[in-house]
Every structure is written in C-alpha cells, then in structure tokens.
C-alpha cells in the first residue's frame, strides 16, 4: 500500500525489533506527519479477499478463530472472493491444515522461533507486511486480549479503520463491510463503515458467530518468511501464568445462572452459586456483582463482558439493562426472577417470576436436589 511510509518512518518498522529511542521532538513530529500524509486512499479495486487472524496458543487454535472463519465464508460468498487465514507461530503446520478444514481457501503460514509466543511488535510487523503485500479487502480478528492488541497496532501501522466487538457483519449494496458495534455499554448500536481505506478491519468477540463443521480441505498453505531481524528486543514475555479454571466457563455451559445487583449481598450470592451447581451450570453476573467482587471478570455477561448462548439462562435479581441483555439474546430459554414487576429484564425473557428470590430459589434448589437424587 504505502511503501513510502516504511521509509519515512526512520527505520522504525521494516525488519527491525530494536527500540527506537525517543530523540528530539522534531524527529518524532515528522514521523507522525508522515503518518498523516500516508493516510491516503488506496485503489480499492486492488484489495480483494477476506482474511481471518487465527489465534493460537501452545499449538491449539482458539475456538473464536474457527468461528471467524464461518463469518468470513459468509462475507466471501457475497463478495465472490476467497477466505484466507493468517497463522503465525513456530511448529504450527498442523493448525494450518485444521484451518483449511474449517473453511479457509488459503492459509498464510509464517513460522519463526520469535513468533512462537505472541508478542505485539513482531506479530504486528509480520502481519502488516503481509497485508501490504497481499492486500485483503477485509481482515477479521478475535476481540481477545491479544487479538485486540494486534488489531489496533496493525490498523495504525497500515493506516486503516478498525471497529471493535462487532456483533454483526454484512456486506451492503456498495460491497462495503457493515460492522455493527455497541456503544454506551450497548445502549446504542452503530454501523461502522470504512469506506476509503483498506483493509476494513474488525474485531469480533468469542461466541458471536458459530463455528462450522469441518470438512475435507481443498485449500492451499502458502508459507511466508518472517522477515524479522534479530536485534535488541524491546519487549520480552518472561512468563505465562495459567489460571486454574476454578470457575466453569460461562460461554461453554449449557446452563448459566446469573445474579445481579438485586442479590444484595455476598451471603445471598451463594443462592446463585447453589442453583448453578444443582443444575450443573456455570455462574455469571452483571457489572454490580463484578464491582462487589462476587464474580470475576470472566463471569461478567454483557457488552463489556461475554456473549453467551446457553440452552438455559436464569437471571436472578437482574434489572435487565441493555448492557447486560446484549450478552444473552441468543440464549435458547431465558427465565427471569426479580421482585420488581417493572424490571426491563421481563421484556427480554421467555418466562418471568415476580418475587423475592429468597422465597423461591432455596425451594427450587431443594426440589431439584430431590429430583437429582430421589432416594436421598
């Protein structure tokens, strides 16, 4: 796209990992001015293909990567073009085969020891060079911690638009990517367009799209050299601390029991946990329980948290503001329990019970235990 920019940026980008020291204000300003100058409108016709960044860790593809392939296939059909997956790592050829079986027509495979673990700058470097060489019209990335980091940095490096946490993707009559994103906590949904820049980039949270079925692959793997110069690394991953999954992942459970501010206190929160336990489900919550410390970040459901699609969702003491309900709209069955008959949650539920949960939940748990264990 803008080969000139690479030169203008004072050797900061192409082929180097070495730390650019902050020098005089003068030099720095010209780099940013160069960025503005390079914010040119590319020839859109030259940009084709739907790309997906395939996130992998320790030799496993994340589910969301496969979900994005499904989304990419739909878009590719409408644009009459192909889907390519971008896979970086070391010793990950087998994942490339998996990506082909999930619908990629092509996998751009870049392997290098320095890419074994995700690191922002080397990954940004490699992906940006690939984009400039092969010119995709659309590039989807997972809205995970690492995916969002990469997406943001790449979009800045190649001077293009990036939307975050898209809940819907489609192609309009002009062949442009319509990216629907939440704002104001999900109260407002906006359709974002990136009309004059390429690629059109978007991040998508896990669970928004469904992964397809694998089939026999007919695509190709195209290997790319990493073009990373060994040099002084400006950032090193010293350690990865895996957290033991003490809590059941809400996005994987068939049953999720969630509590809100209406639970009132830590003591009563145990009713949420016990109900989840007797139903063999996962515990989720809204922002107030997170603020109170009754749940962890990974258990928060909603626009700033997780999107879930369980078979059964039971919401207790949840008012039902849109920031939360955007996270459960694809649940099969929603049961809401709240002592306020005017609570918004009842607009979003299949079944509603207006009651103080303390009157009903303990009894419900007892009854369910009896049915689980009739002899007890």
């Amino acid at each position: 796209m803008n080969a000139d920019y690479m030169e203008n940026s004072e050797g900061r980008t192409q082929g180097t990992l070495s730390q650019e020291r902050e020098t005089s204000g003068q030099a720095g300003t010209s780099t940013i001015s160069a960025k503005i100058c390079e914010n040119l409108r590319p020839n859109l016709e030259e940009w084709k293909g739907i790309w997906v960044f395939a996130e992998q860790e320790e030799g496993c593809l994340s589910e969301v990567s496969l979900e994005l392939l499904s989304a990419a296939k739909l878009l590719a059909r409408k644009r009459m073009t192909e889907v390519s997956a971008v896979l970086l790592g070391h010793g990950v050829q087998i994942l490339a085969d998996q990506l082909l079986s999930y619908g990629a027509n092509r996998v751009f495979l870049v392997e290098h020891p320095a890419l074994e673990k995700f690191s922002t700058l080397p990954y940004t470097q490699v992906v940006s060079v690939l984009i400039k060489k092969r010119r995709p019209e659309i590039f989807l990335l997972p809205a995970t911690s690492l995916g969002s980091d990469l997406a943001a940095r790449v979009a800045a490096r190649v001077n293009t638009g990036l939307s975050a946490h898209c809940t819907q993707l489609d192609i309009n009559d002009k062949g442009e990517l319509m990216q629907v994103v939440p704002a104001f906590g999900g109260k407002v949904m906006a359709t974002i367009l990136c009309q004059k820049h390429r690629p059109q980039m978007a991040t998508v949270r896990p669970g928004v799209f469904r992964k397809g079925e694998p089939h026999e692959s007919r695509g190709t793997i195209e290997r790319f050299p990493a073009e990373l110069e060994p040099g002084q690394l400006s950032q090193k991953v010293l350690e990865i601390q895996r957290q033991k999954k003490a809590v059941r992942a809400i996005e994987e459970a068939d049953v999720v029991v969630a509590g809100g501010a209406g639970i009132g206190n830590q003591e009563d929160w145990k009713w949420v946990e016990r109900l989840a336990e007797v139903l063999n489900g996962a515990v989720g919550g809204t922002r107030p329980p997170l603020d109170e410390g009754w749940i962890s970040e990974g258990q928060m459901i909603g626009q700033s948290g997780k999107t879930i699609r369980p078979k059964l969702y039971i919401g207790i003491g949840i008012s039902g503001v849109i920031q939360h309900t955007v996270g459960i709209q694809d649940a099969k069955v929603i049961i809401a329990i709240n002592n306020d008959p005017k609570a918004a949650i009842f607009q979003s539920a299949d079944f509603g019970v207006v009651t103080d949960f303390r009157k009903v939940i303990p009894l419900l748990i007892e009854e369910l235990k009896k049915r689980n264990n009739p002899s007890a």
Partner: protein
Amino acid sequence: MNIIVCLKPAPDPKRWDSIQLDPLTKALQREGIPSVLGPLDKRALEQGLRIKEKHGGKVAVVAMAPPSAKDNLLEALAMGAHEAYLLSDRAFAGSDTWATSIVLAKGIRKLGGFDLILCGSYSLDGSTGHVGAQLAEFLGVPNVNQVVAVESIAGEMLRTKSIVESGYRILETCLPCLITVTREINTPRFTSLFGVIEAESKPLITWMAGDLGISPEDVGFSGSPTQTGDVFLPEMKRQVQMLDGEPEEMVQEIIRKIRQALG
C-alpha cells in the same frame, strides 16, 4: 520520570438511560449529561502518581475532549497531577480511534520527552480499547495492554503483569513505553480539599489543531478512516410468560420450564 496519563472524559454512565436517539437525524442527544472520568482513567492516573511518588518526576494529564472537560482535568489535577493539557478543537469531533491517536500523539510530542504513558484499557463510551495501542504505534514505542500490576521499574525496563484469556503474562518492556490498565491494578485516591484548592493554580493548557500542527481535514469526521453510519437503539423483545402463584407452585412451573429447555 516523565509520566503522561491520557484521559477520556465521557458521559456519566449513571445517566446513559437518558441518551436519546433522534429518529430523523440519527444524532445522539446527550445534552445535559455531564462528562466524568471513568474508573479506568482514574486508575491510570493513580498508577502514574504512585510511580512518580516512588521514582520521582512528574505526571501530566492529556485529554482530547470538548472545552467542558476542563472540570474533569481539574479533578485530575486535584488528585495530584502536575499539569493538564486539553486538546480541543471542533475539527477533532467525530474522530475515530486512528484520528484520536494521531491528535494525542501530536499533543504528547509537543510536551517533549516521556518515559511512560498510562491509559485506561478502555473508555466508558466507545469502549474499543484500541487507542492505547494505536497511540503507542504512532509514538514508536512498545505497549502493554490490560496491566493488572506494575511489578518493577529498574534500569529503563518495566515489568508488568497483564491479562490474557488463559491467565496472566509477565512482560518486560523497554522504556519509554505505553501501558493500559485494568480495574484490578489499584484503588484510586480521593481528591482532598487541599488538592482541589491546589488544582486551581496548576497549569491547565488548551491546545487547538493549529497549535499541534494538525490540519482539520486530517482528523475528525473527515480524516477518520471509519465512519459511523446507521445508529439505532437495539431492542431485545421476547414474549414473556409470567409465572405466578404460591412459591411451591412457582417452583414446580420453573422446573417444568427448565426441563423443556434442557430437552
């Protein structure tokens, strides 16, 4: 250490339910909703202040915002920042994260050198979480997102603990760099009366596009690579069936519905 904290004053979430969408113009009506510093902004500032207290130096806050955000910057000064810079111009309105990061980068360059920039990991309103990384890219420094703890700063190296889906990563990053912080990182201090009084005499400087050497068409609505099209208030409607009766009856009904759902 020269520390810069980027802030994004945004409409008070407690008043979001009063945001209206004009069905004709598709414009968001948010008049009368005051802007506030988000909890992540405050945590970024708190962390900056703690680092300054430990390592010496000063903390400057920077915000790209409308003139009304002066109050939010005064609050930041009252918390302990030394100086505040408001980057404000009509031309900046409608900036997406790319354009916002350009403006912030120009402003920060104008300030001179820095050792560390801190931002909240996402803002209250747009919540993309992208500006930190994009700003770092334009300034040519490394970034660490979603930092839950600053473990050490020694010999031009910053050691941090940051979130990933599988747990945490411990990273070592060369200074100068940029970090974005999460709610786990600290509990922000309250402003004291003394702080509020002191704030009035600290520098609060406003820079416009011209001061930053930015042409209006390069930022805002015209310069942003992304454009906002259709805006709507989503509705999630299901036909709710209310269950009632005595608790025992309700429980039986609920169990029936649970069974049906799980098939």
